[in-house]
């Protein structure tokens, strides 16, 4: 039962990265690929109806984590206090930028929000990557099950009191940024026509190379810092399917971008993200928050809620998530196709 909930929470977080990932990515590129006000509005239009719903996957994941693994929720949220708060501030500013930009027709007003939208989106991508990096690297969980991590100490991941940012987590942060830039540009390419479409494709092409390099570097760094991350792969070799999906996705982005198939590029990018997220989850299991001192690690067993709670949760969660899937398919179908200038919302 705990393992099932581990999979479900990992699924929700992966959905969050897949969905909010493209609108974060779109935010990270929009001031570069869109040169005038109308093009920028089109990018916002391409994510306008869906970004808020995408973000709900984060909130719902947080809630589900709270209910299924309360100890993990309490320990990690208080331990990652500062970066989490900063993430929340960025989410607020970014949400406002999307909501308020079109309220006044004034170029300065628009530029101001464009700037904040870019900063919010790009920093969020980096922080998410760094957060995942922290979980992989391990955090200084004490005997009581709690810890507190400062933003940085001496930037060394092998330090006994590591900070949120060290060279390893900065690396994972950059990988996340590059990944979401590719993801977001392929979304915008899919949703727009020339000239935006062409510019987004060239962004995908360029950042694809960066993605390959950073993926390789991160993989090497991960296994040299934490060789035990490999143990699940050697004991359950079927798990290699996850990194293979990631590699296939990465190859797919490179292949389809050359044959101008935007839909396939976006799906390949999804496959890459899905593969990376699931590989990480697979390698971590049964830890949910590895500690610097392995004795204090939080696992699916010592951090989960009671059996009754998990069982009854399975009933309502399944119903709720099926309903959510129905709305999402419905909304994405209604808004399918390219956005055109002028058909803005309310």
């Amino acid at each position, binding site marked *: 039962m705990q393992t099932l909930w581990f999979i479900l929470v990992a699924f929700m977080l992966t959905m969050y990265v897949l969905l909010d990932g493209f609108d974060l990515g779109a935010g990270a590129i929009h001031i570069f690929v869109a040169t005038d006000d109308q093009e920028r509005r089109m990018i916002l239009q391409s994510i306008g109806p869906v970004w808020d719903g995408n973000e709900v996957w984060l909130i719902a994941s947080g809630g589900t984590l709270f209910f299924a693994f309360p100890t993990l929720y309490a320990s990690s949220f208080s331990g990652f206090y500062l970066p989490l708060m900063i993430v929340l501030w960025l989410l607020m500013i970014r949400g406002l930028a999307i909501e308020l930009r079109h309220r006044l027709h004034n170029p300065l007003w628009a530029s101001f929000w464009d700037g904040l939208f870019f900063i919010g989106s790009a920093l969020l991508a980096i922080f998410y990557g760094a957060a995942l990096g922290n979980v992989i690297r391990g955090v200084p969980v004490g005997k009581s099950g709690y810890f507190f991590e400062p933003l940085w100490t001496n930037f060394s991941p092998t330090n006994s009191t590591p900070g949120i940012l060290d060279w390893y987590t900065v690396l994972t942060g950059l990988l996340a940024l590059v990944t979401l830039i590719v993801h977001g540009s392929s979304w915008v390419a899919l949703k727009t026509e020339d000239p935006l479409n062409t510019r987004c494709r060239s962004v995908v092409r360029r950042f694809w190379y960066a993605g390959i390099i950073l993926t390789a570097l991160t993989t090497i760094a991960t296994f040299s810092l934490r060789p035990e991350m490999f143990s699940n792969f050697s004991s359950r070799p079927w798990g290699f399917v996850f990194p293979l999906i990631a590699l296939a996705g990465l190859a797919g982005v490179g292949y389809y971008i050359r044959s101008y198939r935007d839909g396939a590029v976006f799906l390949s990018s999804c496959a890459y993200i899905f593969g990376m997220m699931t590989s990480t989850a697979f390698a971590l299991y049964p830890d949910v928050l590895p500690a610097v001192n392995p004795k204090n690690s939080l696992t699916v067993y010592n951090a989960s809620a009671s059996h009754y*709670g998990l069982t009854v949760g399975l009933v309502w969660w399944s119903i709720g998530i099926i309903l959510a899937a129905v709305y999402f398919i419905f909304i994405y179908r209604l808004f399918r196709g390219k956005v055109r200038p002028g058909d803005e919302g309310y």
Partner: protein
Amino acid sequence: MNAALLNLADLHPVLALQDGGNVLLHRWQFGFNLIYHYLYPQLTMGLIFLIFVLETLYLRRRDEVFKKAANFWTKLFAPAFVIGAVTGIPLEFGFGTNWAVFSTVSGGVIGQTVALEGVFAFFVESAFLGLYLYGGEAFGERVRWFSSFMIFLGSWASGYFILTVNSWMQNPIGYKRLPNGNLAIEHLWKLFLNPWLFHQYIHVIGGTIVVGSFAMAGVGAFYLLSKRDIEYGRLFVTTGVIFGLVASIWMIYPSGDMESQAVAEHQPAKLAAMEGVFETQKGAPLTIIGQPNAQEMKIDNPIELPKVLSFLSYRSFESKITGLAGIPRDQWPPVAWTYYSYHIMVGLGTIFAGIMVLAALMLWRRRLFDSRKMLWILMLLTPFPFLTNTFGWITTEVGRQPWIIYGVMRTAQGASFNVNSGNVYFTIAGLAGIFFLLSVLYVLVVLKEVHAGPEPVSEEDEAGLGEEVEDIL
């Protein structure tokens, strides 16, 4: 109660680490965030109901006025909804960031409904808000009406789920204690049918309709007083007064009455503090005005209605009310906060009901639209329901102190002891800065939209308006 508490402290190793030094800061951050956040949902939950009413009227009567009116209110609703959502995320995460020990202990119970809110309410609201805002014109009237209904349903469901958490903290039931000191849920249905939840929910929902309808009446009054958009002004004032009348009476009876009876029954310390009862007595008076004096254990300068409190609490003029003197000092809530918040809420609430009865009578006699005095009152009344809801929440939450889970766990035990005060100061400052920005921007949006009015303006007009606003800035 004390026995249960000591028991928990013995069982839970983490509680030994709690020094209590930074608890007050965590409370300030969470309380500040809560109060600020809830300024928006109380507006949007009320407004979406009224928008849904306008959309339904449009579908039935096919009069463009209703559609344009709904569009106008949507422009005020949407940014408030987004601000409510983004300021709510730190609260959902705040259980973990600022109340880590509380979350560890109670997550096995309230985690359920926190997660339920995300999965059942937030997905619905956000998905259909996107559809309503961006697809309202493209997909036809029925899709539009249906999405307004779904946003309404989602946001009221959201209120229900989160109140399930709060009513469990007020009246914990359906749980058991595990050997490691944490609490585990025993019956999920008990949480949903918590007797506390029923009266709390109908009271809170009533409060949102008061806010929404007073805002609608206020904007309508502004148009009538300014002699512009008369048709809309009348529609807004009429709708606002009708729903405002029903809701403001509903807040007093039955929902408010049920709330105070439940407090009297389950939380005697809160009742004593909010009513300012020091001595345990039969036939306790209702204090209308007066200053609680905790040194001399009496109300200074009291204006009282004899025996009324006993009647309101237990339906008998001679029933006994436990005073603060009969409760150990370490189980008192902060008396002044609880007393004044409660009195402000009740005082304002009574005034609202009075004004709305008067306004409704004038509406009925067809005198309201010409009465500048009454329109002025309605316009100026707009911000006050925000105060009553806020002070109502302060009453119920501060009045619950010193408990975070009533009778089970103290607030001082629940805070994140691993997050030191320097970091909390930092985040309070950050939140304050962002909230200030949000307030300025929202006020700006409201002023702009109300000034622009419900009739869609042409592109040139809008450009001119942008310049005007720029000049003002």
